């Protein structure tokens, strides 16, 4: 019995499906991700197990673990925070997003929020990390 001999030249790999998949992955990473550090800029947000509202836009107040306070990435003294936030907000309906490090002192955060409330800042939201 005679077997047909297979040709010795290898079959060329079809590149088109591979390119399709690679482009698909590329588009996914472009759309779904953010390059480099996330928007929180290295602040470790507290983890929350409850479903919360999606993140919106607004003036960002950062409370670092060492107690330093930043308003839109600009260091501000604790006594000047409320005034600076009101200046940044311009209009009163711009929400204030507070990103406090999970190791930061809760009492400092509450004092800060109370000072903001006294200054008339109405919409304050605390950022958390979902699971």
């Amino acid at each position, binding site marked *: 019995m005679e077997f047909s001999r297979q040709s010795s030249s290898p079959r060329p790999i079809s*590149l088109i499906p591979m390119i399709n998949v690679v482009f698909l992955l590329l588009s996914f*990473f472009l759309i779904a991700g953010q390059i480099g550090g996330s*928007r929180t800029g290295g602040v470790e947000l507290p*983890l929350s197990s*409850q479903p919360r509202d999606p993140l919106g836009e607004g003036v960002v107040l950062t409370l670092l673990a060492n107690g330093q306070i930043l308003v839109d990435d600009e260091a501000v003294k604790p006594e000047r925070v409320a005034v600076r936030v009101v200046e940044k907000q311009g209009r009163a309906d711009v929400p204030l997003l507070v990103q406090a490090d999970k190791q930061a002192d809760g009492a400092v955060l*509450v*004092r800060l929020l109370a000072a903001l*409330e006294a200054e008339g800042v109405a919409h304050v*939201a605390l950022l*958390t990390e979902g699971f």
Partner: protein
Amino acid sequence: MEIPRNERRISAGVAMTSLVDLTFLLMIFFMVTTTFSSAQQVDMAVSAKARAGAVSEDNLLVRLEERQILLGGAVQSPEKLRKAVRDALAKEPEATVTLAVGKKVAVQFVIEVMDLVNGAGATKVVLSEP
């Protein structure tokens, strides 16, 4: 005069190899540098007035000290707090839970207690100074 036709055909296809190289390079770059954020926001209410004496009977005052939950001066377990919140809501569905944040309390612990209180059904949670 007849021009002799070149028998060898030159392929006019696109050079795929460089395209694939570049695409892979881009893909690896995005895979390495991309971070996925799942940040969410919790609308906060702070009440400087909601101190110990000012909290009415229908509302619940919870003190936080270090990693302890204090209810009526006694340290309570998370389960006890959950039950206390449910009892308060059964009496007054619009009850406000005030979290008085004391010294040496990390923000993470405040959020954990807020999760617990929200999980028990309370929608109005207020932070206050001790």
